[in-house]
């Protein structure tokens, strides 16, 4: 099998998941550029490709995004974006809606590093070992980071005021009615 054939097979197998990985972290207009650049790096390093391709490809894409972020003076962890309008699985479950709302609010209180750890598992579906390879740390280290991030998220959720405790209308409006 020629190098071009090997690469084409790699590309076809991993293109969608790499695109999703990038799409979760960048605005849509920038996605294709990073995906293409990441595969170009992979093409040029094909001989060095490890057995586990997915974390390797994700790591390449992450580097490209970090480099771009640094170029623009943003040194924080990659900003992982949430779905603009999260759609609950069952709209009739008010409690589910409340928990999703809380989750979005709690998500906003996590730091960028914690979000990155959580999304590598929850969205990208990586194992701890794969996610550790993406971030360049030991699997054990990643597990500790994941545990801390999850617990932090839960602590925040515990402390959020209940949605049903919120006033139905803005306070100023209620006052005006009286």
């Amino acid at each position, binding site marked *: 099998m020629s190098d071009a054939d090997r690469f084409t097979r790699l590309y076809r197998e991993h293109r969608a998941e790499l695109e999703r990985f990038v799409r979760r972290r960048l605005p849509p207009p920038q996605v294709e550029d990073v995906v293409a650049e990441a595969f170009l790096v992979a093409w040029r390093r094909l001989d060095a*490709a490890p057995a586990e391709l997915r974390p390797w490809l994700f790591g390449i894409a992450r580097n490209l995004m970090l480099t771009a972020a640094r170029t623009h003076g943003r040194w924080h962890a990659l900003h992982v974006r949430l779905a603009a309008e999260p759609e609950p699985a069952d709209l009739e479950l008010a409690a589910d809606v409340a928990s999703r709302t809380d989750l979005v609010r709690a998500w906003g209180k996590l730091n*960028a590093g914690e979000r990155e750890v959580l999304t590598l598992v929850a969205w990208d579906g990586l194992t701890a070992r794969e996610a550790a390879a993406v971030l360049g*740390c030991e699997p054990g280290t990643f597990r500790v980071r994941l545990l801390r991030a999850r617990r932090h998220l839960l602590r925040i959720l515990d402390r959020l005021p209940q949605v049903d405790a919120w006033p139905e209308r803005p306070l100023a409006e209620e006052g005006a009615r009286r």
Partner: protein
Amino acid sequence: MTPERTVLAQLADLDPTRHEPLADREQVDATLAWVLAHDPVQPEPTGSRPHRRWVALAGAAAALVLGLAGAHVLPGLITGTGSTAAAATVPMLAYAQPEGTPARAELEQLADRVRDAADPPPPDGAYRYLRVVGETWAFVKRSPEGSMEADALQLSMETWVAPDGSIRVLQKDDGIARYGYGDFAPGDFPPPADLSGTPDEIVRRLAAGAPKDEAAYAVLSAYVSSVGLYGAYPAAERSAFLDGLAALDVTSYGTVADRAGRTGLAFGAAHHVPYRPHPVPDDPAAAEQMRRSSPPADLDGHIDDVRVILDPVTGTLLAVEHIQSGVDYLPMDTVTGYTTFLEDTYVATMPECGHLGCGANGPPADGDSPFGGGAARPGTEPITGPEANRFYDLTRDSDFTFGRLRRQPLPDGSEVEGFLRNLETGTEMTFTYQDESVGGLPADLLDDPEYTAYDLPGGRGFIYLSDRTATLRGQSHDGTRTAVVTINAPGAGTLANEDLAFARDVFVPGLLRGSAE
């Protein structure tokens, strides 16, 4: 399912790509074609190696003269857990108010005293001379399983500032002038901070747009950097600066003796350093090395605290202390570096560079060389272009860089002679090389009893070794190519093994391979 598992499952529902279409088939195929249209092997970078000496000096300047010294980690030898490193660092100074109090009143009082202080008489010399001494710590893990170790580095920096703003620097690491003198043109460093105007204008200018809660740290750092490079400001500007500083979130730590034994008033400001992820090398082997030696990520970031110690009467800067808190591998409030400002005066002349070399960043003497490397021999001609590339290629994977590469006419031909310096260790190397025009080394050199013979690819080698120098002689088997190489350790140091190995196993054999390969 545990609450932690549940929350992960819920997070999966928020994945933005669940409801967004991926690229269509046409786009997917176009990207594949675009990638495959590229040469699969990335072209080797061409041109001269980066000016690593500049990097080293600039880094040291950042660490010392610019007053930004602090804990750092060595590339590839990053920290682990434990507290043994902190035990090796110096203890906290004995501040009169270790817990700190708001500094406004004390800064305003000091500003009043400085306002009344008289500036010293105008200097005689044309060159401002500054001397600072400090110490900083890197925290390293020697092996993946090893504990963290503190690696102290003592730094001193002498600086001469000419009237035109050009700067000559002599930096010593652990007492060794590893990089020789460094010359910097006006504009290579930021100009002195502008302390003109009202106190409010001064701090706004020095804060450079920093958020309000970071302004004090930014202002103090900018001030320290400027004083470190260009010396103390006149009393009127110092007092205005202190008045401006008094309006910021600065903490007073009271009277303290600095590490040079001088009594001063300590003021500090802190800022939060956020978590900064590092890219993972694309090369799997390098990534594995990084993974094995990386510390746990400092997700919460840490706090950097900079404390200046000011003369209680004149307000001049005596010292800077750097303290970190919240670093996972360090105890709270660990001193990670300090700088003492010991001399600030004027002298009549700049020092001669002498054997240390000079003009690290001046115009190249030969082609792309980043430093002069001593005077060229009379009657020699620089070698440039493709002919020079063969020699430059020999140093491609080393820290040696050419400072001179010239051809010397001889009665029966010519020889190539050159000068190189290892920009990391400071080791210097000179060599001469002759090819077909001369018939091998003279017999007395081949049979010199002080030299030890060794095998080298394509020829014979002879080496004479002392602690600080080594001379190597080599000759190709057919006797048509000969080389004589001498390497010297910098200052009073011993010769680094890796430099000797480079000369013996790479450079001499490379010369003897000739231009045919």
